[in-house]
């Protein structure tokens, strides 16, 4: 995967999102405090927000280019997005949520990722006929991952997906993300304000502060153990 974000500019309420980066890692982390523009960055990549300036290119395909007026709609980008609040469709059951993208006639190659495989990898086979409202937090997240993966995205954007879960549950869900990476090979951008999650999952990390990428490096470059097994950001 090669995601090029060139001279991106998006005015937000208090500051502007200004990012200039080339992402190529299997799982890229975007780390920063709440309100540092992480979610806005994901929304821009997903095509849910139109940047004022800049260019975004994924594997050679231009997704948006303000200079030439190109802006590919979200439904044409093949980029998966799991928001913080999982946003499972409440009027559909688990199976219908998982298969939502399959009900759409999409041109292009057939999905390489099968329903049976995804359900097995994420351990949600027993949930498929359940109502969404009856799921626990960890189950909801796994279903949300599965739904995004089943659309065969070229890139998966995860916005603080473990935020609502307690520490123990987080430890149980993180291995599923590892399996997802290994089984499906979909590159991911993982957004979080939690250093432990970033260290557990990411190969390359961008540190976002007030909309700007202030530091970048591997987890070893940016984070240090505070009280094992917890990590903190190293001083600049």
């Amino acid at each position, binding site marked *: 995967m090669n995601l090029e974000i060139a001279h991106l500019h998006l005015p937000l309420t208090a500051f502007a999102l200004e990012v200039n980066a080339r992402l190529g890692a299997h799982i890229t982390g975007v780390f920063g405090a709440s309100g540092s523009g992480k979610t806005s960055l994901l*929304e821009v990549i*997903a*095509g*849910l927000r139109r940047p004022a300036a800049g260019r975004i290119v994924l594997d050679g395909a231009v997704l948006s280019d303000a200079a030439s007026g190109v802006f590919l*709609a*979200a*439904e044409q*980008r*093949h*980029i*998966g*997005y799991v*928001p913080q*609040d999982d*946003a499972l*469709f*409440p*009027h559909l*059951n688990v199976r219908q949520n998982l298969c*939502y*993208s399959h*009900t*759409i006639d*999409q041109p292009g190659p057939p999905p390489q990722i099968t329903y049976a495989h995804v359900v097995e990898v994420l351990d949600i086979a027993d949930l498929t006929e359940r*109502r*969404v*409202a009856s799921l626990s937090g960890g189950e909801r997240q796994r279903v949300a991952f599965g*739904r*995004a993966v089943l*659309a065969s*995205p070229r890139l998966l954007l995860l916005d603080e997906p473990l935020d609502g879960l307690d520490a123990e549950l987080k430890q149980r869900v993180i291995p599923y993300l590892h399996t997802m990476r290994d089984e499906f090979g979909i590159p991911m951008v993982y957004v979080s304000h939690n250093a432990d999650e970033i260290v557990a999952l990411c190969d390359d990390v961008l540190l976002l502060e007030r909309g700007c990428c202030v530091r970048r490096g591997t987890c070893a470059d940016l984070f240090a153990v505070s009280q094992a097994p917890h990590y903190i950001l190293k001083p600049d």
Partner: protein
Amino acid sequence: MSFEVWQVAWFTTWVAAIGTLLILPPGIALGWLLARKHWPGKTLVETLVTLPLVMPPVATGLMLLKLFGRRGLLGRWCESVFGVEIVFTWRAVVIATAVMSFPLLVRTARLALEGVNPRYEQVARTLGAGPWRVFWTITLPLAARGLVAGAVLAFARALGEFGATIMVAGFIPGRTATLSLSIYHLVQLSRDNEAWGLLAISVALAFGALWLSEILLRKRPSL
């Protein structure tokens, strides 16, 4: 009760239903535009649509009469294109009830659509669904209960329409006589006993409509 009474009750229900069905697509579309989009002139359109709700119904009726009359802009157009007359026919009753119910429908539709979390729509788009598909499979089902409630409210309002109807359709027994027009007419003629019968039907119809909306609202779609 006589045949006429049932004929009036049936006619009233029928025109109210046609009027409501007629405004359902534009009402939901406008409600969606007001709930989800920003566009120039939005406040003006919103005010214009709400106008029949606060204006004297008779004044709205007069405007419709001028508009759909034989020499009116839309009246002439309807006559030349479809060859049909509007004023003082059942069509005028449908138009009067539709116009008077429209603001209620738009307002409830807007509220219902605003209540749908845009996150669901955004996620559906990242899953490959275009705007129409998102509307039909996500927005509409999630707003359905509020939309049905709005439609029933509009229908109930249409059942009792008086002021605009009397202006644009007049009281012609067997042609434009609705329940409320007939009640007024009978009381004028001191035929109160017959008016009571119509009153009972009016109450039953309104009660039934609201009861239905309550049941529909309580029965959640299979979540």
